[in-house]
Structures are given as C-alpha cells and as structure tokens.
C-alpha cells in the first residue's frame, strides 16, 4: 500500500466544486466530524469545570472560568499520596523501554531473517510468524503463571519482558530489509567492519521510516495496555496510568471533573505524539492492516 500518500481526486472535473453533490458530502462529513469530536471536547471542557457544573442539564460546555483545581486534585490522588506521579512515571518507563527494545530486537532479528542463511532459519521464521496468529488474550493465563514462576510479577520486568516478542515488528523489518542492497553490506565487510557495526551503523540508520512506524505502534499499544498490568501488578507503586484511572474510578466517589482531568493528562502525551508524527500513526494503521 505505497499509495497512501497519494491523495485521490477521482472526480476532478466530473463534479464541479460547488455542485449539490459535493456540498452534500461536505455537510455529511462535517456532521460526523463534529459527532466524533464531541466526546473529546467533553473531556477537555469537563476537566476544567467543577463537578456541579458538569451535571447541569443541558451541559454548559464552557462556564467562562477555568477550574484548574481538578488537575491538582487528580495529581494529588487519593489520600494526597501523589501516587499519580509515580504511576505516570511507570507508564513512561514501560512504554519507552518496550518501544526501544522492541525496535532494536525486531530490527536485528528481521535483519538476520532477511540477509543471512543458517540452519533452521525457515523453521524459526515459521515459528515466529505463527505466534502472530495467537492473540495475547489466549495466552495471558499461562503467561501470568510464567511471570509468577520467574518472580517478575509486580515489577518493571513483569510489565516489560512479555512484550518484547513482537512477531509483527520482526515481519515488518524483514520485509523492509529484504530489498536492502547486498553490495552495501558486502563492501562494508570488505572494509573490515564487524557484523554488529554493520547492523548498527549501516542497517539501522537506513530503516528510519519503518522504525518510526513500529515505534509509534508499540508505544501506543503499551500506553494503552490495561489487561496485562491488571493481572500482573498488585502494588500501588507499580501501577500504570490506566490502572490509576480504574483505581480512582473505583475508590473515590468519582468527581467527574477530576476524572476527566486525569483522563486528559493521560491523553496529552499521546496526542502530542499524534500531532507531531501523524504520518507514522496513519502508516501504522495501514501497515497493521496489510499484515497479510
């Protein structure tokens, strides 16, 4: 799907710019765009309103004053524990380290599967690709037992290690590198470069677009991850942001404004990423769509 950047104007001269048809399209699109944005607007507007205002009917959208207190209360958390800061720190640590390691591991494995010949390669490739068929939900129970047996539950290791096996990332890297010019690698070898050096200095820098796409995909999945942390984490200190939200929801008598403030802070990093790297977000969608 290399045509994703090619914007298409099928009906260029066919339908004039201001034909009824095109105006209708615009109206429909705008209507749905507004519908889609409303919940997001609700989150941001409610996050700066006291709870009493939020429950007014009809919903006031904007009250004229900004109630920053919600953000402060959200960060303070239950019993003024400021556990929020620790929890968002955990989310950042887990997401970035999984992303970083997945990218390197997928790249080096994909590189090996694309450019090297060795015994059992076909088998290894098949086995790894086969795991793509198995959804996380189907193996989470035994995975949980593995985490218990390895003694990594309730720790960073427990949150990070199970996600370093990204068959899809390996596949993406392999497909990308299979067309990588051999001459470049061989001439580096003749110049006496070691294999690690070749990977690090020649292969990796040439994979930037694919790396960015994979990184965005991984970061986002991790930032979003709920099910696994829910299983493997018990202590408040080790919780990630989705778990903090759940806990807050279950514990306090859910002040909507504070909840929305927490939700907003949890979304801001990913939105910044989205607006600065939207190309890779959209790529990652299209890529994971075309994995067959």
């Amino acid at each position, binding site marked *: 799907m290399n045509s994703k950047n090619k914007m298409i104007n099928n009906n260029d001269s*066919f339908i004039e710019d201001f034909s009824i048809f095109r105006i209708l*399209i615009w109206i429909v699109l705008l209507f749905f765009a507004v519908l889609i944005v409303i919940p997001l607007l609700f989150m941001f507007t409610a996050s700066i309103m006291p709870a009493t205002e939020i429950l007014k009917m009809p919903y006031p959208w904007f009250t004229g004053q900004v109630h920053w207190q919600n953000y402060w209360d959200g960060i303070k958390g239950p019993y003024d524990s400021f556990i929020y800061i620790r929890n968002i720190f955990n989310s950042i640590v887990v997401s970035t380290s999984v992303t970083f390691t997945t990218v390197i591991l997928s790249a080096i494995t994909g590189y*090996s599967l694309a450019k090297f010949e060795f015994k059992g390669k076909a088998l290894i490739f098949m086995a790894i690709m086969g795991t793509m068929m198995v959804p996380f939900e189907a193996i989470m129970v*035994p995975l949980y037992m593995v985490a218990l047996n390895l003694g990594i539950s309730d720790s960073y290791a427990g949150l990070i*290690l199970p996600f370093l096996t990204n068959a899809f990332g390996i596949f993406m890297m392999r497909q990308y590198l299979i067309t990588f010019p051999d001459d470049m690698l061989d001439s580096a070898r003749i110049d006496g470069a070691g294999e690690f050096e070749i990977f690090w200095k020649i292969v990796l820098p040439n994979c930037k677009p694919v790396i960015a796409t994979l990184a965005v995909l991984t970061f986002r999945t991790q930032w979003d991850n*709920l*099910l696994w942390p829910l299983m493997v984490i018990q202590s408040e200190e080790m919780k990630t942001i989705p778990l903090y939200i759940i806990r807050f929801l279950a514990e306090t008598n859910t002040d909507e404004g504070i909840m929305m403030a927490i939700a907003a802070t949890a979304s801001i990093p990913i939105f910044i990423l*989205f607006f600065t790297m939207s190309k890779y977000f959209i790529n990652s969608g299209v890529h994971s769509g075309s994995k067959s």
Partner: protein
Amino acid sequence: MKKNKNYSIDKEKSFWGLIFVIPSLIFFAFFSFYPILNAIYMSFFKKNLLSLRPARFVGIKNYLYLFNSRQFIQSVKNSAIFSLSTFLLLVLFSLFFAVLITNIKRFQKFFQMVFYSPAVLSSVVAAVIWLFIFDPRGLANQGLNFIASTRGVDYKWLASTNMLRLATVLVYFWKYVGYFTIIFIAGIGSIPSSLYEASKIDGATPLQEFFYITLPLLKPTTLLVSIMAMVRCLKTFSTQYLFTTAGAPSRPINVITLNIYNTAIQDHRIGLASAMSILLFLVLIFLAWFQLRVSKSDEVSYQ
C-alpha cells in the same frame, strides 16, 4: 583458495545470523512458545492458582463443563452480539467515510486526522469519557432527548440490558471507525485512476462509479477490514471491564475476555480459563484461515 575463503565467509555469516536471532528466540521461548503450549496443556487440567495441590488431569472435562455452563454460553453470546453489531457498523461506516473523504478536494488530511483522533486515545480513557456521557444526567440522554424531542427521559444507558450493550458498541465504534477509514482510504488510493477517467468518459454517475468500480475493486480491502474488525471486537476488554467496575450490571456485557480474566484472576481456576482461551483462539484462527482462503481465491486484477 578462493572457494575456501568463500566457504569461511558463509560459515561466519551463518554464525552471525544465528547470533542475531538468539535474543529474540529466548524471549519468544519464555513469553510466547511456552505459554501457547502451556495453555493447551493446562486446558486439560484442573488447577487452582492459589492451592499448592498439583494440577489434576481431567481430560476434556473443562471443555464439557464450559459447554454446559450457562455463564459461559452467556459470555459467548455477549461476545457474538457485540462483535457482530460493532463489526457491521465499523465496516459500513468506515467504507462510507472513506468514499466521502476521497471525493472532496481539500481538507482530506484534516478529515482523516479528525476521524482517526479517537483511535489514539487509550481505551481506558475512551471508556471513562463515555461512562460520563452515559450518565443519567449526561450528554447521551440530553442528545437522545433532543433528537426524539422528549423531555428528561432517562434511557438507562448503563442499566438496561440492551442499552448497555449498545453503549459498549458505541464506544468501540467511535474509537475505531477512523482507524478502518484510513485503511479503506489506502485501498481506494490503490485503485488506478485511469479506471475512473474511463468511466468519466463513458458518462458514469458517481453512484455507478461507486458500485461498478470502487466497491468491486475494494473487495480485498473490505475483507481485510472485516476480519480485522471482527478479531479486534472479539478481543475487546477495557470498555466492558471499566463499565462493570463503575457499577454497570455485568451480565449483558460479560464478554469472553472479561470472563477469562475473572475466571483466572478472581476465581483462580486456571484450567478452566485456559480452556476458554483455547476456544477463543480457535475462533480467531478460524477467522484468519477464512481470510487467507477467501483472499487467495479472490485475487483482484485491475485490468
């Protein structure tokens, strides 16, 4: 001499190739291969997570138990209702949006971004936002009252069985419709524009263009999106989990993943949860197989 050297280079290369896959293989062994095999194995055993008693072999009793368990059948039903309705909505609307977006001249990127934006939110955040929208005093009731021109009716979004199901469908639909729209747009982009030019010369109307060019040539994309949407829906967890945590009745939205989670983590019945996982896995593998089969027999040519 030369041959010899080549031989040693090959040998060295195969050595490095192996070195480069070993780190991944170690992780896969622990966190993928072993759990997969273990899930199959455990599904034939009776094992309580907390008890020290070793697992007891029970054959296919876990599976038999599941097929006779009301609660399990109910969760299968819930998953089926959720997946079928969400997937239908997703496919229809994302195709619709994609066709509309590719038919305007300006602001294509803008609309793509707007429609895609909920997909970047974390699913917990999405669920929390909608939880408050579905509040008895929330936007959902206000909106529905406005459309139906009723006053102050509470539609019981989070209380009545069908409304609760609809609520979870809406959350999921809202979150992922933009994602699939993007895939459809890429699919439409790969249709050669010469076809549209030709049809233009023949004087086809936009609707004819859609039904005779876009739709038939989008078949592979539609299939792909359908399977992906289906698989994703079957794996839904966060919305249902969060809604039940917030006090919604769990029976109508106790989907299969939620059931697996509760059986393993709350009830500690590992064998039973494994058996459920295997059944879920079989359904998903069937979908993957189906996709592969249909897409192979159905290669589209643009000529």
